[in-house]
């Protein structure tokens, strides 16, 4: 029983980080209908930023999020303005190619600059844990989860209680109608991509004390982000949150009871089942 709870707790905690990645992707897709294959690479950039802030400025990874969020928001916005905005009316295949290309440029530039060697961030609490009722809970993961929860709540407040937030949701709902209503949809896209990037980078920062950093780390997370986003329903933030935690739990518990080599298989089977029985995702409203 102990092992089960251990798996459950680890799963939920890491699910929080997955959720953050998924939310970023779902905002981008919701607002622009662009499938961002560079999402994992944005996470990777966040990890490298955290690493350098930690080693050069000696700022704790969790604290450095304060620097990373605005930086990556600006970077994401810039990417959108310069590159993706031009392709918004192109064929979806071309948009995908564009984001894949962006991702490749990002990961390969980092590889050129810093080599593929794994970088490991070691903080004083990297392997610390608290024991609760015989279950060991990773300290850095708890802090990540709390931060994720706060950011998600802040995001909700932004999207539901501010004008800009509502404008973003309007653009996501119906781009043309929003444009007719006088919303600057190009600017909303920029903000949305900025938010998506900032979230992905934050997820990277949160996971960096416990994972390893290398240029190709993005691809695993891009894939997971897609599963989470589609599972939760494209465009639904709450769905992405739920999806992330579900995937985290499925991986963890499935890994224990079926075998850790089967972890990914379980996640994808879950994904397929949801798509078969509820194609719009768990909480998605069927859009297109």
């Amino acid at each position, binding site marked *: 029983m102990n092992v089960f709870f251990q798996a459950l707790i680890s799963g939920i905690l890491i699910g929080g980080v997955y959720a953050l990645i998924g939310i970023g992707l779902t905002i981008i897709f919701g607002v622009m209908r662009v499938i961002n294959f560079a999402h994992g690479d944005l996470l990777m950039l966040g990890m490298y930023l955290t690493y350098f802030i930690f080693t050069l400025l000696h700022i704790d990874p969790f604290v450095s999020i304060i620097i990373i969020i605005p930086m990556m928001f600006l970077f994401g916005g810039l990417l959108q303005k310069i590159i993706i905005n031009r392709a918004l009316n192109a064929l979806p295949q071309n948009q995908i190619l564009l984001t894949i290309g962006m991702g490749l440029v990002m990961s390969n530039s980092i590889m050129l600059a810093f080599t593929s*060697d794994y970088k490991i961030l070691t903080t004083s609490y990297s*392997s610390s844990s608290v024991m609760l009722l015989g279950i*060991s809970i990773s300290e850095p993961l708890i802090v990540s989860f709390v931060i994720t929860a706060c950011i998600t709540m802040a995001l909700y407040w932004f999207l539901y209680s501010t004008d800009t937030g509502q404008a973003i949701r309007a653009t996501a709902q119906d781009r043309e109608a929003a444009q007719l209503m006088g919303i600057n949809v190009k600017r909303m896209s920029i903000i949305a991509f900025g938010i998506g990037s900032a979230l992905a980078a934050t997820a990277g920062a949160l996971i960096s004390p416990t994972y390893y950093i290398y240029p190709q780390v993005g691809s695993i997370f891009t894939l997971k982000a897609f599963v989470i986003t589609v599972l939760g329903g494209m465009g639904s933030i709450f769905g992405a949150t739920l999806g992330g935690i579900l995937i985290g739990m499925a991986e963890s518990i499935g890994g224990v009871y079926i075998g850790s080599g089967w972890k990914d298989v379980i996640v994808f089977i879950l994904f397929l089942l949801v798509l078969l029985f509820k194609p719009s995702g768990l909480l998605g409203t069927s859009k297109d």
Partner: protein
Amino acid sequence: MKRYVALIMTLLFVMPAVALAGTVKLGFINSITGPEAPIGENLTNGVTLAIEDLKTKGIDVDLITEDDTGKPDKSLAAFEKLATRDKVTGIVGPYTSATANADAKMAERYKVPLIVPAASKEEITRQGFKWVYRVSGTTGDYAGVLFDLATTLGKPKTLAILNENSDFGVSGAKSAKAIAEQKGIKVVFEEAYSPGSPDYRSTLAQVKAANPDLVFMVSYAADAILLMRQSREIGLTPMAFLGAGAGFSIAQFAKEKDISQGVFSSTQWTKDAPWPGSKEWYERYVKQFGKPPTYHAACAYESMMIMGQAAAAAGGDREKTREALHTGKWNGILGEVRFQDYNGYQNQRKAVMLVEQVQNGHHETVWPLSDMAKKPIWPFPGWSK
């Protein structure tokens, strides 16, 4: 005008061939970038030293290096290029067991002599291949020496095996199981994990629940660190952690004192090895590259030395080089090297293994007792707070 251009172009093509007539053309495939880059770096440096030493012996090596990023398909492509387009006499490499197993089949098909420096999957030299020669020890050697140490220093009864599900990991697990059975140690938990996961906690919780005396791990660089970090989190404290080389052998792992203290790692060479020139070679490596070498560097060095000398003696002919490898004997920092057929292996060196243990952030030779630099710490000292 066109005729002159054609003439000049032809001359330009012929010139390099003429200039290199006195040299030996060899290929080197390695994981230069990619997840195994930290270990691959050691092989590259080992080969660099070998090329220097071959030059002082009067053998000029025209070395063509290919990066396979640790992926078998890239390794196959690299091999084909070296064999058919570059027409090298022989190839040294690659690093990982997965890529080496793939390249071995290519070597047999293209009839190019291949020396495998550091890949330990047993099957690589159990396939009846004529063209594949292995300097590296096998996972059977890795597991054997670790269990010898464990059963001499203590009386372990149970064993947990944690291996990544790559060629190397699976072979390691198989060897460990076979040897454990021989020594009467019971396997209470076994898991082949998928590498690259951020979270091994649930697996490690199961290991802890099984309460093994020994934990035997087969992992590459990144997972070794992650697994030990999470083992510390979970509070796993067996009698000993036995690492099958690879990820456990690199300096980066040792530097993380919180998680590396007391971990054993099987190795094919250390600076304290009883073979001629080992200590000097170690010092030369540290002086030139700024960090201590792993056994991979020594294996790659010796492999390139052997291939260089064999190819030069054979005048660049592939079949003659193969014969030279088949019958030759060399003596260097790995001791006496001969490729033999034994126990179902073909063209395999009988590796003499040592064991290192991480003590205070450094790898120290602790086994065999006749070669030890420091006494082994037994049992596992527990986690620092």
